[in-house]
């Protein structure tokens, strides 16, 4: 991306850069934690652009536009800006952005944190903002010294004149620098001059997370705040029919008020509100959703898979090489790649066809959904753990009929996000409750509410068919996919009645050299809410695809690594990742007695990744994972330590997807309710994980927040096959008698 593509708005002074906004309840310094309630910004702060303020006393404040939910973005992106600026990292402080168009993701023109987009979308923005401000500071210093700007440099928070060794602190220059026109194309530092980028920085908020002072949404407090415990219709689409307020009179609560599809009990204490809610007599009108069960959903998937109503979304070579009974319905004929053509089906000696299934899942962030809102005569303030500040602002504006400048959304730390916190359902509840009682209200969901009123990762059903010629070569592949929408709530404009791009992720950027391919899709309507969850479409799709590739390798009697290697022979970047993973895992050497290995490769979120899993399985189906090796090429790893964390944790998330977790439905309700029946991995199940990077320099940068589980899941299933001869084609593995030990 060329720098000139940046919208002018990045250079403008946003509400945050102007220093007038009520910002987050804590400010972080890399060196030490500064804690303050609603600090605002001192008047002497001078904004050089929407992302940066410098005060006369030399404080450098960088605005963090992306929600911190464990992925380390609050450290990584500001470090990129600080590196270009030449700031003293130990003296930088950070503030969370408000909802403001200045902080929109430039790729999508929308303010959110998700889809592993943050580094990809903001890396160039951060560099340019840092470099532009640096040039303005240098120009101001050069004016004062009456020297050429080229003879000066910025370093450690000072502008230095090389020849005379004179220097000014940034704070001395900020006012004059702000009067300079921001250069649109400032020179960017070569990687050799980076002091922060590419290193392993301590996370800026880690001290606060270690001494208990970090402010998550759950911990936010504002004067006069009261609490609400909530219950929404247990059946999807149901409504409150009747509420007997008298049934909780003895609890002395403040009020019982309606919220969207449910009811909130408001009290001075959450505990008091929760006790009253548990006793509250409320009846719901279930509506038509009450007939939904996992079996009725399965029947819908089956009918779709066996039907003929397919949308052709991708093809290469002869798209009809494999016979199929349905008509081509191209998504957009223009969009089909040049060279795809329809010719009569070919005859191959071997056809292989298998179905794969991924399950419904709940995000189960450790911090249950919560939000604080204060609706006043003047407007509305919201404080909460949100990945979707702009979505939240839009929803609140719509609810209250207010313009955007009257609705302020302040972002706290997030106790996990994984996509769950992109929607504003929990925000709307807090706003409704606050409006009803006229006080600031913090809504807190019970874990039961959190599990049973998630917006779920949809189950996905695949059928993949391959045609093999007489020499054992893979000549054609047809992939049919049935999935409910992933983006319907988080990005409505990208979804139509028949298409959702997220559902296809991973199937359109396959690097295997297969001459004739096609991908057909059916967007399934289901009566349960579905949305994005860490790995989005890549998770289910790569599980299916990489399991199938593994089957083809075994069918041929080939080594699964060698088989993939041959299919990737024209792609050096892919081969480098695959080769490093096998080298580090010792793939070419026999595994220790009783140990078996599985491998999987993919590009996901623009990152190339490969996992090798080494495990043993005893007769009872107990799986012991001895070793996991993961290799990732994200182009350039901006922070090695933080990215390593993410890939280690990705294995644990992958274990949840692959082995333990599942949401099922009965009578229109979610069956699971808490961690006793919605299982996630625990300490004893943690395998040793080794992480390796390749910095290929590829652009755009790959995302690393979600990629961790993607190839781990099929590598695990493939290793289970190697160990047991059982090919597991539907997740989770615990449905098939396996468990982790």
């Amino acid at each position, binding site marked *: 991306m060329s720098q000139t593509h940046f919208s002018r708005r990045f250079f403008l002074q946003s509400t945050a850069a102007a220093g007038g906004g009520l910002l987050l309840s804590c400010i972080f310094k890399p060196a030490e934690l500064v804690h303050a309630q609603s600090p605002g910004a001192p008047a002497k702060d001078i904004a050089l652009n929407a992302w940066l303020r410098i005060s006369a006393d030399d404080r450098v404040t960088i605005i963090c536009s992306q929600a911190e939910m*464990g992925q380390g973005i609050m450290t990584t992106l500001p470090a990129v800006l600080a590196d270009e600026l030449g700031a003293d990292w130990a003296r930088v402080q950070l503030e969370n952005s408000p909802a403001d168009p200045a902080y929109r993701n430039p790729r999508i023109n929308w303010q959110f944190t998700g889809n592993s987009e943050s580094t990809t979308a903001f890396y160039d923005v951060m560099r340019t903002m840092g470099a532009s401000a640096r040039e303005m500071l240098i120009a101001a210093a050069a004016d004062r010294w009456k020297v050429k700007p080229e003879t000066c440099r910025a370093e450690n928070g000072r502008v230095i004149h090389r020849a005379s060794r004179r220097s000014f602190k940034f704070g001395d220059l900020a006012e004059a620098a702000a009067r300079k026109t921001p250069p649109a194309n400032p020179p960017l530092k070569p990687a050799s001059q980076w002091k922060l980028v590419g290193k392993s920085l301590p996370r800026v908020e880690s001290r606060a997370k270690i001494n208990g*002072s970090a*402010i998550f949404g759950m911990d936010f407090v504002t004067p006069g705040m009261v609490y609400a415990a909530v219950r929404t219709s247990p059946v999807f689409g149901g409504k409150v029919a009747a509420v007997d307020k008298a049934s909780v009179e003895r609890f002395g609560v403040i009020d019982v008020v309606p919220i969207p599809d449910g009811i909130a009990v408001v009290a001075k204490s959450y505990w008091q509100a929760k006790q009253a809610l548990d006793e509250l007599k409320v009846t719901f009108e279930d509506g038509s959703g009450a007939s939904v069960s996992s079996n009725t959903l399965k029947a819908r998937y089956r009918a779709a898979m066996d039907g003929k109503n397919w949308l052709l979304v991708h093809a290469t070579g002869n798209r009809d090489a494999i016979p199929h009974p349905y008509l081509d319905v191209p998504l957009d004929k223009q969009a089909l790649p040049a060279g795809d053509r329809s010719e009569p089906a070919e005859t191959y000696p071997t056809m292989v066809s298998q179905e794969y299934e991924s399950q419904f899942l709940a995000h189960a962030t*450790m*911090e249950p959904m919560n939000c604080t809102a204060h609706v006043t005569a003047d407007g509305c303030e919201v404080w909460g753990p949100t990945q979707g500040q702009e979505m939240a602002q839009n929803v609140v504006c719509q609810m209250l009929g207010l313009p955007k400048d009257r609705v302020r959304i302040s972002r706290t730390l997030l106790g996990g996000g994984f996509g769950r916190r992109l929607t504003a359902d929990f925000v709307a509840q807090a706003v409704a409750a606050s409006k009803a009682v006229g006080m600031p209200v913090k809504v807190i969901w019970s*874990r039961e509410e959190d599990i049973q009123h998630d917006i779920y990762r949809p189950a996905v059903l695949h059928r993949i068919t391959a045609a093999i010629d007489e020499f054992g070569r893979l000549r054609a592949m047809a992939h049919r996919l049935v999935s409910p929408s992933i983006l319907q709530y988080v990005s409505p404009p990208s979804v139509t009645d028949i298409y959702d791009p997220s559902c296809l992720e991973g199937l359109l950027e396959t690097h295997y050299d297969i001459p004739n391919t096609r991908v057909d899709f059916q967007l399934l309507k289901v009566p349960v809410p579905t949305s994005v969850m860490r790995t989005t479409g890549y998770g289910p799709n790569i599980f299916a695809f990489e399991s199938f590739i593994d089957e083809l390798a075994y069918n041929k009697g080939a080594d699964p690594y060698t088989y993939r290697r041959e299919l990737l022979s024209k792609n050096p970047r892919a081969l480098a990742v695959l080769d490093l993973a096998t080298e580090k895992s010792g793939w070419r050497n026999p595994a220790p007695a009783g140990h078996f290995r599985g491998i999987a490769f993919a590009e996901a979120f623009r990152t190339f990744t490969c996992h090798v899993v080494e495990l043993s399985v005893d007769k009872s189906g107990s799986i012991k994972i001895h070793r996991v090796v993961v290799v990732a090429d994200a182009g350039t790893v901006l922070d090695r330590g933080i990215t390593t964390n993410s890939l280690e944790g990705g294995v644990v998330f992958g274990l949840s997807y692959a082995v333990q977790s599942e949401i099922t439905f009965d009578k229109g309700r979610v069956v699971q309710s*808490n961690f*006793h029946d919605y299982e996630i991995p*625990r300490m004893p199940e943690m395998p040793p994980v080794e992480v390796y990077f390749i910095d290929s320099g590829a652009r755009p940068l790959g995302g690393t927040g979600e990629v961790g589980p993607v190839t781990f899941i099929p590598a695990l299933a493939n290793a289970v096959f190697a160990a047991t001869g059982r090919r597991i084609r539907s997740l989770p593995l615990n449905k098939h008698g396996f468990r982790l030990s």
Partner: protein
Amino acid sequence: MKTISLIVNGKSASVQVDPSKPLLWVLREDLGLTGTKFGCGMALCGCCTVHLNGDAVRSCVTPIGRAEGQRVTTIEGLSGDVSHPIQQAWLAEQVPQCGYCQPGQMMSAACLLAANPNPNDADIDNAMAGNLCRCGTYQRIRRAIHRAAGIANAKGGHRR
């Protein structure tokens, strides 16, 4: 409602509450100690772990009445300046990702080390199995506990 006195992080505290109110919510709402987290309400996730007379308990299911006159230590009581060996090790290993479960993890770990100054991996697995982490920091927690054991032994013992 009842007046209940207890010692929290070494200081006397007195609260006017329903004795059945869980210690978790007394700490968070009545005493303003929000480092201790709510995660499940059923002692299933360990986010709310605190020390009651030196033992790790799940404060979400511990009625405040049970803590009357007792010593309670929360994450804020390990140390504010991150000087406790567990905190130092957590910082050195850069354990937290989202960080929400970490106060509970650290309180469980501190208890483990007080009882067993040199735990092996199996000891760690046993002691920490009740603390869930959705970000998946278990590998770093394990390393940090080993590191903390080294720090504490060098300092001449564990405290909690």
